[in-house]
């Protein structure tokens, strides 16, 4: 039996700003992890990733990152993805500054 599929979000960096972005279920790119589409089906995840890869003039390097359902929406699982939702820990720059946290 195959392993259970860990839910995913599609994430990338914005082409111009480099900001961390997430794909929503209505095909927008959001800076807020909680707004991302939580993908719970493996085949659907591949389709969504293909969709992201086609938008090569909007985002760079899209990939699937593990996520889980949270009170306000999807939450990151790994600490690296957690940092990507917030920005660096030494200054209130990045996401903290832009008010996405």
């Amino acid at each position, binding site marked *: 039996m195959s392993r259970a599929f860990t839910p995913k979000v599609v994430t990338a960096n914005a*082409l*111009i700003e*480099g900001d961390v972005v997430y794909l929503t279920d209505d095909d927008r790119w959001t800076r807020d992890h909680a707004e991302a589409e939580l993908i719970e089906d493996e085949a659907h995840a591949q389709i969504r990733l293909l969709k992201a890869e086609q938008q090569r*003039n909007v985002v760079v*390097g899209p990939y699937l990152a593990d996520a889980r359902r949270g009170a306000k929406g999807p939450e990151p699982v790994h*600490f*690296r993805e957690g940092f990507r939702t917030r920005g660096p*820990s030494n200054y209130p720059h990045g996401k903290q500054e832009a008010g996405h946290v």
Partner: protein
Amino acid sequence: MYEYSDFDEAFVRRRNAQFRAQVERRIDGSLTEDEFRPLRLMNGLYLQLHAYMLRVAIPYGTLSSRKMRQLALIAERWDKGYGHFTTRQNIQFNWPKLTDVPEILDALADVEMHAIQTSGNTIRNVTADHFAGAAADEIEDPRPTAELIRQWSTDHPEFQFLPRKFKIGVTGSPHDRAVIKSHDIGLRIVRGSGGQTGYEVLVGGGLGRTPMVAQVIRPFLKKADLLPYLEAIVSTYNLMGRRDNKYKARIKITVFENGMEKFRDAVESRFEEVKREFTGFDPEVIAKIEHSFTPPAFRTAPEDGYETARKADPVFRAWTDTNLTAHRAPGYAIVTISLKAHGATPGDASAAQMRLMADLADRYGHGELRISHEQNVVLPHVHKSDLWALHAALKSEGLATANIGLVSDIIACPGMDYCALATARSIPIAQQIATHFKAIGLEEDIGALKIKISGCINACGHHHVGHIGILGLDRAGVENYQITLGGDHTENLTLGERAGPGFAYDEVVPAIERLLRAYLALRDDMSETFLDAYRRLGAEPFKAALYPAEAARDAA
């Protein structure tokens, strides 16, 4: 200081124009990211965790006040008001927008700076002793050599696609402050039997996942043979180096797998060929480069009130005790400005700090600044009579911290706060160690100590050669920090030994405190440094301090 020739100027401007067009084509969709990535990397532009990062070369760590002011302007206009000085004498801007990068590169070109070959499998920024031209122990200024290598290696058609990146470091002093033994090629200026200067050439050093100490390939190389010999080494590596496995592609592995004898034979036979064809040694060009590093006119003046001020002001005295190094000219000192205020990010400088350092360099330091691989800024030539005023002026921007060489003068890579390759954070660990030891008042008591922190195995933070090295890893989705002991970054380059299992993020500071309290209890007297004590006693008592539970169990 070296000034661009018309050729340099035209070359940099042309590259900038090319890159501007490449950015436009990326944005309009004519270039894919796969096509664009190598082009942006050739111009120092990375995509990191939260944003793009532009890495700008500071050749051999030397800046004029004018260049420093331009870095401040770039930080303010296109970034978030600060820059990060790195362990390879570069500056990194952490927040540029892709569309602004061509403007930034033009602003750099206005002050004879660029970001070319700060990435990619090319010969990178050539680094040198940050006390070059000032150190009391120096045989010869290494910067004319480094500048010659910069000119030779920039856009060298044969060496744009090496098996892997390639780093060259140069020192002109017997005391190595440029960590040349951790470079792909290390050059040490030495005096030959006839009194003439030449190079001891070392090859195959490197940190990273397979750390190795460089070995001597040529004990003495004539100066006129430098470029053909370097050409022979790099072209031999270009053919012999592995391209099948990224992790075995550095020259250290080429030398290790083939053995020094075989590698040396291949280099020497290639050298014979290159030397015959080489027509590039032009004494006029060399003389011109050397002339541009002529030392400033040092003044002969009394050290007016320096000792009096030291006696009267304990804060000033503490700063002079830690932040000064012997200068070769009478009455002068080398000043290291700490970018490690307790709790600050190692190597970061705000635009205001950069401007102040540029102004003070003009006022007291012949307009010259250096960036050290230890992520501090150096004013290489300050007359002692100016030190009190300089110290007072540094305070206004929080730049008067008296901690050079102490526990809080930590090297830390950007780690997972910025870097896409990192496996854990480095900066907050450095911040916590610095503030903790200040709070418990042990910094002065502990004395000379090098803590070096890397946020991944690539070792940008030089953890292998720290007296205490800290390596951040990802262990099953949790940050975990390995501690190494006994490393040495000097001419006696030594790789530290791993002490044992890693520590969780919030266990690192307590572990370092146990280690250093053990050192204080074990040392012979105040003059025995941590490294001396470690060498005398071996690892065991320090391991026992790091792992008290294991030590107690073993004792039971």
